[in-house]
């Protein structure tokens, strides 16, 4: 087992553990923290896969903005834990069963047909440099890029409209 594999399996264990922690934590803040940990490890995976730009964007946007927003909302609402606990009993076992089936199917699809995707030759040094990504973003993906910016604007306006308290009627 090489150092790469050790690193990979270690990080993978952390990622899966963090995901499970997110899933099982009673407290939403802990869930959020676990998720941040998970995102951080995924960012490291991105770095290992030669995507530094995406890795940094992952940390800045997911960890830095989105999860802060989550924490903010949790704390604002004081919604760390749910008060009542009425369960629908049959949902949980079926869900776990279906998830296991999905996992088996996925693993079968990935490994079961003898098509192990191994990594090919190391890529060029300027692979996924900011220049390369910017070049692609502003040429072939210009329209999606602009559409995304419109989407963000729409989301912003929508959020403001949603959150604004209705004016008190006299």
């Amino acid at each position, binding site marked *: 087992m090489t150092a790469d594999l050790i690193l990979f399996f270690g990080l993978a264990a952390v990622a899966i553990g963090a995901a499970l922690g997110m899933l099982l934590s009673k*407290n939403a*803040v*802990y869930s959020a*923290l676990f998720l*941040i940990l998970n995102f951080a490890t995924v960012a490291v995976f991105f770095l290992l896969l030669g995507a*530094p*730009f995406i890795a*940094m*964007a992952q*940390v*800045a946007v997911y*960890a*830095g*903005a989105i999860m*802060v*927003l989550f*924490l*903010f909302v949790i*704390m*604002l609402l004081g919604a760390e834990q749910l008060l009542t606990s009425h369960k629908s009993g049959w949902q949980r076992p079926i869900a776990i069963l279906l998830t296991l089936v999905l996992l088996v199917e996925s693993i079968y699809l990935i490994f079961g047909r003898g098509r192990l995707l191994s990594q090919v030759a190391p890529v060029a040094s300027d692979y996924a*440099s*900011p220049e390369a990504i910017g070049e692609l973003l502003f040429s072939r993906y210009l329209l999606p890029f602009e559409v995304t910016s419109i989407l963000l604007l729409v989301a912003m306006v929508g959020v403001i409209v949603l959150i604004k308290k209705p004016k008190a009627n006299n």
Partner: protein
Amino acid sequence: MQIETALLIEWVVKSTILIFALLTGFAYTTFYERRLLALIQVRIGPNRTGPFGFLQPAADGLKLIFKEELIPANAYKFVFILAPILTVIPALIIMAVVPWGGAIELFGRQIALGLTDINVAILYLLSVASISVYGIVLAGWSSDNKYAMMGGLRSSAQMLSYELSLGLAFVVPILLAGSMSLNQIIEAQRGVWFIFYQPIAALVFYIAMLAEVNRAPFDMPEAEQELTAGYHTEYSGMKFSLFFMGEYMKMIAVSAIFATLFLGGYRGPFVDTYPLLGPLYLFLKVFLSLGLMIWIRATLPRLRYDRLMAFGWKILLPLSILNVFVTAVIIVVFGL
């Protein structure tokens, strides 16, 4: 593997030097602040411990180490302990991409003064800056104290708001230098510092930077008068000193970044001939920037919270967007 080992040793040595420099810097920044504040307020300041009071930081440190550690009964204990650590770590690692000099020749190896030079350095700065908010938020939340909670929430809102302007201020040097690598940005300032090309971006950056490190007049999260010191109300002893440390190290780090982006970094006269002058120049620039911060703290009153948010969203953000736009248009039109 031989070279890899050498590289590993080099990194360890450089990291140790960096951490040591930051720790010392933190200690003496507090001293610097107290003396400068005293000077501005026509007082004397600490001058008894050691010559000119130089040992005062050591005395303070000793005092904090021996203080009793208190943890509130209803606190979320794990997060309560985690929070100060989370505050310090970003302040330490953010300096990893900032170069503090050119390359020097040592033991037959070319050694770059600077931990690493990556092509997404600015993104790295942004992402590390964005996660530094966690320490404060979690500290506020885990203390189970209303004041602390308010401080944490205010802090997160404030940092998210000013991060946008900060990011847009980052864009201007990227545009001017055509690279995200800090080394290349410094190279691009070989002739004229960017602060002369882009005084507005520099101003925006400095203001946003003050807000990011929660310095006066944006020290809302720890507002002593209204929030009884905000998020670290419940902290004492070494955990409190970690917050303290984080704040001052962040001050040093952002000053270094400011110097790198707008003041030519480690560049100065004769630095090409004598590379060891680089760290000295950087130190001088950081020193000046810190002095400015302390001066501002001594001069300006704290902003009201709603005004602070309004200023961030309604003045600083449009201004920086406009600045980026105008800069980009000028670059395209004049083909700079």
